[in-house]
């Protein structure tokens, strides 16, 4: 019964928003092309879903996200661990990284277009470039946060360097690495749509929105945005919370919330 009440409360803003929207589209006197009615938006959503265009756009967008994120994850964790383990590397790279990190990745988009042309390659490269820095920084901090006592006692007990890395440094740094990956993925996701608009990729959710602008297809734009929101929620809840529960929470390094 209480759950039902919660659901009712939660749906309240949606009902209000939908009501206001519907009123605007019917009585607001705006052109229907710009403010389509709710039913039209949902019709478009399901039509595009049925035609498969929405899903294939989403697939290619997620593909780009995954590829870019794979590159930045591997490179970021690698560089971060090197920085955490070797002080020379840390001191050499840190100022450089702290200068590049705050520049918004999206600002590089036109530059990447000049260098690598339009399409998939520059999009994926830019995505990995924009998301690599949070991964590096968090991995680095995580490795630094591993208690020296753990390493020393392992050394005393005769652990090899590879054992220390695999059994102590990596698990010890993992909570930080995971939150770095999470931040990196969020950073990539935040600009991916805009990158697709600027790189004029062949197919993708961002391109779908951008392309519809030319034809004033507001319903298509909104339908795409709904799907983007759904994907975002799923990514956060399903993937990362699950990984965290399976690893760091299970190993007792952070409490589950």
């Amino acid at each position, binding site marked *: 019964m209480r759950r039902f009440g919660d659901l009712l409360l939660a749906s309240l803003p949606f009902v209000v928003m939908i009501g206001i929207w519907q009123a605007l589209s019917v009585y607001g006197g705006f052109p229907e092309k710009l403010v389509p009615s709710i039913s039209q938006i949902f019709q478009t959503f399901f039509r595009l879903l049925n035609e498969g265009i929405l899903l294939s756009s989403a697939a290619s967008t997620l593909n780009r996200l995954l590829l870019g994120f794979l590159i930045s994850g591997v490179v970021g964790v690698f560089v971060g661990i090197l920085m955490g383990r070797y002080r020379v590397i840390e001191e050499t790279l840190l100022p450089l990284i702290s200068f590049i990190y705050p520049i918004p990745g999206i*600002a590089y988009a036109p530059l990447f277009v000049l260098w690598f042309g339009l399409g998939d390659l520059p999009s994926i490269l830019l995505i990995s470039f924009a998301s690599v820095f949070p991964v590096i920084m968090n991995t680095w901090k995580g490795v630094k946060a591993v208690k020296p006592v753990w390493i020393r006692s392992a050394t005393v007990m005769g652990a090899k360097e590879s054992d220390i890395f695999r059994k102590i440094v990596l698990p010890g740094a993992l909570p930080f690495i995971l939150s770095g990956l999470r931040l990196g993925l969020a950073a990539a996701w935040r600009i991916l749509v805009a990158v697709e608009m600027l790189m004029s990729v062949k197919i993708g959710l961002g391109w779908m929105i951008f392309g519809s602008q030319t034809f004033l297809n507001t319903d298509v734009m909104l339908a795409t945005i709904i799907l983007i*929101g759904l994907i975002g929620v799923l990514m956060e809840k399903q993937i990362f919370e699950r990984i965290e529960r399976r690893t760091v929470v299970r190993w007792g390094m952070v409490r589950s919330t």
Partner: protein
Amino acid sequence: MGHGEKYMTRPANLASSTPRRFGAAFFRGIAGLAGALVLWEVFARSGLFSVALTPPLGAVVAKLTEMISAGMIFGHTLVTMARVLMGLAVAFVIAVPLGIWMGNSRTVEKIISPTLSVLMPIPSLAWVPLFVLWFGIGNFSTILVVIYASIFTMIFNTWTGVRAINQIWYKSAVVMGANSRQMLFKVMLPGTMPYIISGLRISFGRAWIAVIGGELLASPDWGLGKIIFDAREFLDTESMLSALVFIGLIGIGIEKLFLKRLEKITIERWGMSQSQSS
């Protein structure tokens, strides 16, 4: 803890805090930066890409000085900054009261938070083409994107901050006869302030991305993003890189010199420990 305790309390490597180490770190940092620049210069002169695409450092510096002495870049910067500030201000005025309200009332929390978690994962830049259709090219659309990019973190941080306030403070304030006004201004707001400030810092980072992206996509007449976008048309890589350096410097300046410091001051002033980051 047992006997592990006595080792753990000892600083891990005392050497890292001595001045000599600092000197070495400084020179290595310089070497890292110089190395990157040299790498660029070699790359630029190697002819792998045409010079128009990877200009040598001298050309970039010349362009940057030209842009600075012509003064145009300051105008663009001012416009971009004004958009960020306007957006952040609007977001702040909405987010902080809403966050406090949500922190105080379970009902409000239950009403608002599902909506937030649906809207938050939608990248702000996805809205740009739609905003352009509705409100046209220019300031309004760009500021709206900045608001969208920054408001959710602010709400969430304020809300978390209110819930993180020590219950004893409330109880003692009630016992000492505080009215609800005093409760808000003397207990709740100061207690939440570190969270609000760090929310502001994170929001600034997001707003900064959104404003540049918005300027690239909504192409208003002025702004740093506009410089980059225009430069592409003329293969003017020097201008692009100059604008990037400028964007980087401003971002670091605001983040490190202003917001980090503000965060530190509030946390120290109110004796708070770590607050929620990211």
